[in-house]
């Protein structure tokens, strides 16, 4: 009798718990199926349909893979992807080595500047470089006065420059933390066996951090090939897949966007191949970091010390130059593309007069999306970490998809899916909130998952054995421990949401335009003043979020990767 009496509350409780988490699981599956799987499937299927007869065909893909126009764009995309990746490595790895191995004064300033470069939208970089090095650019004019002609920013090298400076912080932050976690004995053993400093670097140190470098590099590649704003602002005739997908879509208006969709699939395949290649290269090369016996950064004196500091500061200064330029120009008096001289707030006044909706929209959409991401992210990561079933494993895998689907492609999928019947949301703010939500949900889930994995279940069990109910144990122990990670994740979601351009550009209407959309059209119209003022508002908002993350996150800069 007593055993039954003892068991019953437990059984009822576990049933209740099963029910609650099962509901969460079911809702997650439905939401992800509807917002992610279905739109992508639409894109996939449409590429195989003849636009006139609606029958199965491979002709669209054959056209993309044989036509010079498309092949050219494919080649260009590969070039900027690989160029951006290599550029990011060339900046990120030396910077990481310097700050991890030497005592660099102002290391946290360097890291903060790198993070700022990372969280500012890439098109701000493109547009600032136009302000500095464009045809009418400040530096171009200065040099012209001196009789020198600078290479133009427009075209392939400009895009690669912007990507390198924009994405190198991924390589830098990942490589630096890996370098810091190498057990000192490995490098000592290499030295003991006869390696000089240089040999040691190439034979031991770099191979040991290769997993981190390659993760960062692939991220740069994927983001470079997916980026839309930069090539469309400074690409001129240089077209990449994301710009032609956008152009195709806008020109195919009315008919089914078959070609845009086929190009989109090509981009997804490229990103996936890159990720798979990196996984293959890594293979089983996962080297556990060390918690003790770490290398102590060396103090460097004299000319070498100056060199190390100069290198570090030059890299981050160059990377944050666009931010400085944008903020500076926002306070200049302008009339269209012409700076009329002197400082003033007229750009801000015009922003408030002409596009106040954009500011309100951006913050409203982003805030709603962030709240949704944080709640859903927390629940889904709890399922993934604490209730390992085949379905939660599948959920984890499917959530990888947004990483490799460019925003333009996701937007096309949304437009194909939510354009009729009860789900017709085209032109609404809801569709923008939902695309922000689904595109950034994986980042939110990952942020909470990594924190949750570090919280051992035994700590909740300890609370239960001390008399707390399981619900109370979760609320009293696990939630407070998760909070720093959740806050950091939410801030990151918010930053990426307010800066989102590539997906919203296809979805906005006059009523739902956001700041990045307005900046993009202002740049194309030559309204640099408005663009700068709006960009400054975005940068200040992002900066505030970065500040909050740095305050709350234990791993500091690590929260951004």
């Amino acid at each position, binding site marked *: 009798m007593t055993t039954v009496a003892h068991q019953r509350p437990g059984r009822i409780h576990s049933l209740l718990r099963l029910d609650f988490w099962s509901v969460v699981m079911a809702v997650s599956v439905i939401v992800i199926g509807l917002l992610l799987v279905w739109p992508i499937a639409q894109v996939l299927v449409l590429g195989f349909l003849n636009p006139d007869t609606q029958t199965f065909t491979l002709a669209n893909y054959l056209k993309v893979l044989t036509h010079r126009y498309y092949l050219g764009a494919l080649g260009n995309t590969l070039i900027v992807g690989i160029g951006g990746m290599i550029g990011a490595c060339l900046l990120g790895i030396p910077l990481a080595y310097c700050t991890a191995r030497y005592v660099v004064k102002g290391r946290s300033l360097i890291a903060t500047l790198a993070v700022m470069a990372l969280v500012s939208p890439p098109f701000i970089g493109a547009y600032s470089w136009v302000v500095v090095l464009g045809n009418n650019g400040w530096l171009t004019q200065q040099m012209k006065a001196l009789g020198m002609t600078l290479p133009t920013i427009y075209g392939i090298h400009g895009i690669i420059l912007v990507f390198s400076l924009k994405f190198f912080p991924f390589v830098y932050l990942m490589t630096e933390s890996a370098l810091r976690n190498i057990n000192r004995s*490995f490098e000592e*053993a290499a*030295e*003991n066996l006869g390696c000089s400093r240089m040999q*040691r670097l190439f*034979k031991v140190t770099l191979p040991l951090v290769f997993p981190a470098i390659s993760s960062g590099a692939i991220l740069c590649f994927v983001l470079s090939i997916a980026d839309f704003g930069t090539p469309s602002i400074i690409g001129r005739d240089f077209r990449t897949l994301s710009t032609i997908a956008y152009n195709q879509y806008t020109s195919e208006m009315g008919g089914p966007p078959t070609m845009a969709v086929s190009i989109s699939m090509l981009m997804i395949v490229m990103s996936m191949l890159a990720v798979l290649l990196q996984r293959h290269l890594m293979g089983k090369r996962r080297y556990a970091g060390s918690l003790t*016996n770490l290398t102590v950064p060396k103090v460097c004196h004299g000319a070498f010390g100056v060199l190390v500091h100069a290198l570090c500061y030059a890299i981050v200064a160059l990377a944050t130059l666009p931010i400085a330029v944008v903020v500076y120009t926002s306070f200049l008096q302008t009339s269209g593309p012409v700076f009329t001289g002197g400082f003033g707030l007229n750009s801000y006044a015009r922003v408030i007069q002409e596009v106040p909706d954009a500011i309100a929209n951006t913050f409203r959409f982003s805030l709603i999306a962030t709240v949704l991401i944080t709640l859903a992210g927390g629940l889904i990561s709890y399922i993934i970490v604490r209730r390992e079933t085949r379905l939660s494993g599948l959920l984890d895998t499917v959530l990888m998809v947004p990483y490799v689907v460019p925003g333009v492609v996701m937007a096309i999928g949304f437009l194909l899916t939510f354009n009729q019947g009860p789900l017709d949301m085209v032109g609404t703010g809801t569709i923008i909130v939902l695309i922000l939500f689904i595109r950034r949900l994986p980042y939110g889930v990952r942020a909470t998952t990594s924190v949750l994995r570090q919280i051992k279940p035994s700590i909740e069990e300890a609370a239960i054995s001390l008399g707390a109910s399981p619900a109370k144990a979760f609320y009293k122990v696990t939630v407070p421990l998760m909070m720093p990670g959740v806050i950091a994740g939410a801030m990151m979601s918010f930053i990426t949401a307010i800066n989102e351009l590539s997906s919203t550009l296809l979805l906005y209407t006059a009523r739902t335009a956001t700041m990045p959309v307005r900046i993009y059209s202002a740049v194309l119209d030559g309204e640099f003043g408005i663009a700068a003022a709006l960009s400054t508002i975005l940068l200040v908002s992002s900066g505030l979020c970065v500040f909050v993350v740095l305050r709350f996150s234990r791993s500091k800069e690590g929260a951004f990767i």
Partner: protein
Amino acid sequence: MAQVQLKNIRKTYGNHVALKDINLDIESGAFFTLLGPSGCGKTTLLRAIAGFHQQDAGDILVDQQSIGHLGANKRNVGMVFQDYAVFPHLSVFDNVAFGLVQQKIPANDLHQRVQAILETVQLGQLADRMPHQLSGGQQQRVGLARALVTRPKVLLMDEPLSNLDAKLRIDLRRDIRLLQQELGITTVYVTHDQEEALSISDQVCVMYDGVVQQVDTPWAIYNRPANRFVASFVGANNFLALEQVTNQGASLLGQPIKVPDNLRGAGRFVASVRPEKLIVNQLLAGPGCEFDGVLQQVSFTGRELQLAVDLPGHGILDALTAPNESMVALRPGQSVRLGFLATDALYFEEGDLGKLLS
């Protein structure tokens, strides 16, 4: 085979003096162990020989040639690390070949030498494995093979067994000693495990607070410790304060006891008696000292019996005896008779580093 000499090695970190003028002569082919508690400077000294720490003053000579100012990569000393430091991105073969590649040994020769040393450390079958597929003991064998294959003049080992479990530690300890004797390589070994140091070494150097306390054979270190620190750190020991030391003699626990001649006079002294020299509930076979204590704990470890006996005013004494069923049955609180022979006691000056008197 090489002789190693350390001359006036000094190393400071800020205000902390890690090594205070260390002078050591290590015979060619000797297994020489640096033993001491953590923070005593033994690892710092080993790393100075390896070249990872530059000493502030002094020199290191191998076969009369100074290596004290060469880079760590030019010293031709092998090193085995506490955490193995087997490169995780290279196979067992490539790990062992690493130093030979640095020396630009031709491929044929290299292959032979790597295979031969892998056979020696019993890893011949595992040449193609990656480190993460190996156990800790196997990884440390790779570390050993990698250090030996370049035929260094000196082998340095930094607590190589401390990350392994107890049984494996003893197996590998035996293998290391056999290999060292076979190759006749001069070896400097760092450990904080005194039993390991005694069992493996030709010479043991006990260090404390950056100073060499005693260099001697394991037998002498254990039986003729130079000072009270060595007596207490190497093996277990009981210390008893002497009373009434006069020119006529001394007394311990109220009984007159014969002490060395140079002990007479002013000052405070202690006697030390090893636990295995304490005799429990038995008559002494010669002149010595006997007293009663209160049993606190009896523990049976299989090979022997450990007793903790409270001696009011002197603290707890440890005694070791052969297992004995009637003694296992003793209960805490019972009175036991302890004694030791005068010849089994050693006498030291008072203080942590009090000198041995004889």
